[in-house]
């Protein structure tokens, strides 16, 4: 017999990081909620404007809070399931500190406006590289530990970890491919429709493989441990694991219904989302039915309460998801707060509650003591429920109300709410309700931290140990066909890789290879140098967090915005900026709709032209001087990527930009306002005025 001592110090480090980033990420979330309820919470500080802060929140809760929780839970459970200490303490430490460093750098870069402008993948290329390195170290550490395991077969939790590690690697690499312009700026190698397809293939599977599969893995370990009950069904585990991994990958296009994405891809995205319902519920059934027989303990044990609620929310959001992926439902829900509600259904209800349950269970065990206060934990549970309720109900009401308002026509065939602003101010009470829900949920988290801090103070930390017969791994003969695979985790990893690649290839290749999928439009020309700079400012400020650039083929959108968007209009858009939420109106056809002066006044103080608007003030763009230092390189990169600029245009990019800027400044002066032509706001106005206008210059569509 030898003694295996587990590396629980690393688990402890990730656990503290989870709680710390949870606090940060949710606090920023509350601030954002307040900003939408009252624009003054932007404080007129560029760093704190909604567009820049939103990625701080999303990345902090997904990659910092949930991410650290995954590492914490994976490292704790894997060592025990494999009966082996983690392969390398050093690699574990590099993994930990590298990840925290990335998070800090990410937060700093986002508030500075350094972003790729692709949702949930906003990190610029140097940080993307760091993520890749650290993630691969994690993968190495995990697989090396697997190789040293003392239990021949691997348990279902580990299948999910393997699926996660493989898929996230593929997603991150493919979606991040870009050509650097400088240390802080790059252009993706994909443009327009293709960029959208790759991005949402990534985006949807970030949900699938960062917020679902790893947490299902954690569920398979922590729920039976806490409930002290057997898993309900082994064969259900097999079926729903493989179905989930195979089907998830295809569902991305449901984020792009009725956009300029080819119809066939949208249809595929929809049917695969519908097929996802059953495999997702497979996980819920296995979780809930494992709790069978422990129902009586549910009343007294806060850990089980959190687990039962988390699994129930998982079932709810995986029902809501396929529902919203049905095209006719999506026609109403997309771009509204319903989507935001759906995300939080999963994020607060499933991910956060599961994490809370996990840490309430872990801390007393790791510190060899009892939870400081069961009553406080129960109170936290109920606060969390009330918080989620406020959040989700507000968002349902807001989303459905606004979606219906946008679509309503009068008997005369006119838009019932012609002014978009009217549909924004209607949201105010719901936004207050949401902010309240967020505050309540955050208060619960603070209670958890206090409770655990007191528990830790009372206990004594020690690393777990087990006795194992040495030196041979325990051998068993496979009793089930799938058990053969369970003995060969590397084969399983390769199989998972194959399974997830199929969907991606079938959906993406045609748009890359078959020209007819994105018919070009002769009158659509590349951006001028000044417009490109303006576009980069648009990306930098995160205008896409509130504005879409995608007029869908509906009667109301035609009446409100104009001609619906065509695939060929986006071929020079790197990154694409279709957006996913219309807090403000769509901007694809805004070019030429207003005067330069209107844009200037509106951007400097939106309340001036649009009383009650929740858009932040961008007066700082009038004082900001446009940096034309990289313009030649930017145009050159665009040219290398296929935009038909001439050598002349590349060489004279700076001059052309200044020339165009002077024209806009002159126009503003004629209308009585003096703005120096070298200001950022001039470039932004140039971009806005060009948006969606090329199509009008050509013949009939």
């Amino acid at each position, binding site marked *: 017999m030898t003694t295996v001592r587990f590396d629980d110090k690393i688990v402890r480090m990730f656990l503290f990081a989870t709680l710390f980033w949870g606090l940060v990420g949710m606090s920023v979330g509350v601030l954002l909620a307040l900003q939408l309820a009252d624009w003054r919470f932007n404080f007129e500080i560029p760093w704190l404007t909604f567009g820049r802060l939103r990625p701080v929140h999303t990345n902090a809760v997904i990659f910092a809070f949930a991410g650290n929780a995954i590492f914490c839970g994976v490292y704790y459970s894997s060592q025990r399931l494999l009966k082996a200490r983690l392969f390398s303490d050093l690699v574990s430490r590099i993994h930990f500190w590298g990840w925290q460093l990335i998070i800090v750098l990410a937060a700093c870069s986002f508030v500075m406006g350094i972003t790729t402008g692709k949702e949930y993948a906003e990190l610029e290329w140097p940080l993307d590289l760091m993520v890749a390195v650290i993630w691969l170290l994690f993968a190495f550490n995990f697989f090396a530990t697997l190789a040293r395991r003392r239990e021949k077969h691997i348990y279902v939790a580990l299948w999910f970890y393997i699926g996660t590690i493989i898929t996230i690697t593929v997603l991150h690499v493919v979606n991040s491919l870009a050509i650097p312009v400088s240390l802080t700026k790059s252009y993706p190698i994909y443009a327009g429709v293709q960029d959208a397809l790759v991005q949402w293939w990534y985006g949807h599977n970030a949900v699938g493989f960062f917020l679902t599969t790893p947490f299902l893995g954690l569920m398979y370990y922590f729920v039976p441990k806490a409930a002290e009950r057997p898993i*309900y069904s082994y064969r259900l585990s097999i079926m729903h694991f493989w179905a989930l991994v195979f089907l998830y990958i295809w569902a991305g296009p449901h984020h792009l219904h009725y956009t*300029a994405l080819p119809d066939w891809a949208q249809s595929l995205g929809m049917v695969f989302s519908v097929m996802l319902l059953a495999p997702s519920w497979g996980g819920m059934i296995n979780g809930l039915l494992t709790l069978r027989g422990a129902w009586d303990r549910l009343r007294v044990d806060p850990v089980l309460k959190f687990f039962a609620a988390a699994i129930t929310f998982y079932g709810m959001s995986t029902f809501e998801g396929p529902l919203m992926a049905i095209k006719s439902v999506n026609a109403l829900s997309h771009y509204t707060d319903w989507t935001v509600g759906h995300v939080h259904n999963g994020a607060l209800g499933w991910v956060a509650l599961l994490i809370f349950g996990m840490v309430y269970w872990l801390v007393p065990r790791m510190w060899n003591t009892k939870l400081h206060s069961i009553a406080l934990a129960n109170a936290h549970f109920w606060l969390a429920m009330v918080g989620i309720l406020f959040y989700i109900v507000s968002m349902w009401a807001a989303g459905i109300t606004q979606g219906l308002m946008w679509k309503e026509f009068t008997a005369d065939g006119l838009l019932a709410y012609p002014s978009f602003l009217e549909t924004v101010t209607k949201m105010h009470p719901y936004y207050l309700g949401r902010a309240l829900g967020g505050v309540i949920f955050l208060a619960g988290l603070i209670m958890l931290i206090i409770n655990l801090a007191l528990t830790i103070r009372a206990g004594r930390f020690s690393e777990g140990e087990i006795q194992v017969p040495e030196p041979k791994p325990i051998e068993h003969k496979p009793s089930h066909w799938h058990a053969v695979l369970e003995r060969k985790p590397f084969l399983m990893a390769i199989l998972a890789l194959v399974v997830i690649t199929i969907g991606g290839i079938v959906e993406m290749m045609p748009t890359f290879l078959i020209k007819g999928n994105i*018919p070009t439009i002769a009158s659509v020309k590349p951006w001028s140098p000044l417009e490109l700079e303006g576009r980069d400012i648009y990306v930098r400020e995160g205008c896409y967090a509130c504005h879409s650039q995608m007029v869908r083929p509906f009667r109301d959108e035609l009446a409100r915005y104009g001609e619906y968007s065509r695939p060929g209009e986006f071929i020079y858009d790197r990154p694409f900026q279709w957006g996913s939420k219309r807090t403000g109106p769509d901007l694809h056809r805004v070019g030429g709709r207003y005067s330069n002066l209107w844009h200037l006044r509106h951007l400097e103080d939106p309340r001036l032209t649009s009383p009650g608007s929740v858009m932040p003030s961008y007066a700082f763009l009038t004082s900001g001087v446009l940096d034309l230092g990289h313009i030649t390189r930017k145009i050159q990169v665009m040219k290398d990527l296929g935009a038909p600029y001439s050598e002349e245009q590349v060489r004279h990019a700076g001059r052309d930009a200044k020339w165009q800027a002077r024209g806009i400044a002159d126009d503003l002066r004629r209308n009585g306002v003096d703005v120096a032509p070298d200001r950022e706001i001039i470039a932004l106005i140039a971009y806005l005025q060009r948006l969606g206008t090329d199509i009008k210059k050509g013949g009939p569509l």
Partner: protein
Amino acid sequence: MEKKDEILDHGQDYDGIKEYDNPLPRWFLLMFYGSILFSFAYMAYYTAKTWSIADASGRSANLAWSGARVAAEVREAESGHANFVPPEGDALLSFVRSPGNISRGEALFKANCVACHGENGQGVVGPNLTDRFWIHGGKPEEVLLSIAQGWPGNGMPAWGASQGPEKVHWLTAYVMSLRGRSVSNPKAPQGIEE
């Protein structure tokens, strides 16, 4: 009938975690197979549909479905307004005085014109429409012309093509109704007094 709740013996020790091997619930399997059947049926229907539309319209199949859908939706909605006969002379005068037409015009004005003419027509970039001064004339025919053809050289877009004749008339009715309305911070007069 399979046995329920029997511990599966892999012979492994997963940190004390045991597993049953219960059969999958029937409703669950029905749901799964049902969704697969639905998916095949949907894709078949979709494929047949888009091919026929693409053939009929000569449009490439990639957005044929979306495109055909919107065309049908708009056609149906506008069908009631197809036979609009533009009123002239006295008929025009009574048309622009009709409260119904004024309120229809208001909705359109709020959607399209307030950016330049202000929430109440008091003038921003475009001229004040509530005063008695007109650059291009204040008779209904003249206002109609300003709106329909615009003054693109001076920053006033043309609306005739995008809105169609009926809506341009409603807009005229609303603009005519603005005259003499008292507004806060009106823009200084432009043009000639009536």
